[in-house]
């Protein structure tokens, strides 16, 4: 059983300076089993904010896709960890998730988009995850900094704070 920590980091790396209010930082084993921990944390925060359910579900799906990719590909030969920062931006109100892993360099935004017009027989499910994230989030950007992959996804949640 790996330890799951949710401690805040007091001194974020300079290139990871946060723009908004850092609500939570999770450091999770890079395994699909961690996704439930991540989406529970996101749900809890978004419910406190009063985020519309539809946006909450889209953010959960996006978090699932990104973390699943990290779990599957970042550390082919070892057990690694990934850090997820959950941030609230204001004006306009948005949730930003920043995923940081120190696995092999991988920019998911370079993956070819699936052809969504093919018939069932010709379709595969490859590339759908990243595609969904790009379609449902308002911004997605990737950066390789030092030995880290940093993927930021931002979703406007246009709602008044409770």
């Amino acid at each position: 059983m790996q330890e799951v920590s949710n401690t805040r980091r007091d001194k974020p790396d300079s290139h990871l300076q946060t723009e908004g209010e850092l609500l939570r930082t999770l450091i999770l084993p890079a395994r699909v089993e961690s996704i439930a921990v991540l989406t529970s944390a996101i749900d809890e925060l978004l419910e406190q904010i009063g985020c519309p359910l539809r946006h909450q579900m889209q953010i959960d799906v996006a978090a699932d896709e990104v973390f699943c990719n990290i779990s599957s590909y970042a550390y082919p030969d070892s057990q690694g960890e990934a850090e997820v920062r959950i941030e609230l931006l204001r004006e306009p109100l948005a949730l930003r998730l920043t995923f940081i892993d120190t696995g092999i360099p991988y920019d998911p935004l370079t993956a070819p988009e699936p052809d969504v017009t093919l018939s069932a027989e010709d379709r595969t499910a490859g590339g759908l995850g990243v595609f969904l994230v790009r379609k449902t989030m308002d911004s997605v950007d990737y950066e390789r900094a030092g030995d880290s992959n940093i993927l930021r996804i931002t979703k406007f949640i246009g709602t008044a704070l409770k």
Partner: protein
Amino acid sequence: MLNIKPTIENEKAVFVLEGRLDSMTSSDLEKELTPVLPDLKELTLDLEKLDYISSAGLRVFLLAQKTMNEKGKMTVVHVNETIMEIFEVTGFSDILTIE
């Protein structure tokens, strides 16, 4: 969390899915569906209580649809707005029979 409630009679099956069909749970659905698919002529997936579906869930739907296309019919019913949007964005709304 995903609850799967299958009702199978003769060559017809209804699978009621409740919760989240995601990276963790979609393999559970695949395990439940795979052994029964060869005997089915009609498969209905009832999504009324399903909160969302990720690409891992779409993959299982695609596999089931391809299998059913060869010998019968698959229908997806009670699709909520969030899931419908995912079907539309990914082109699954053209692949699946949604009622």
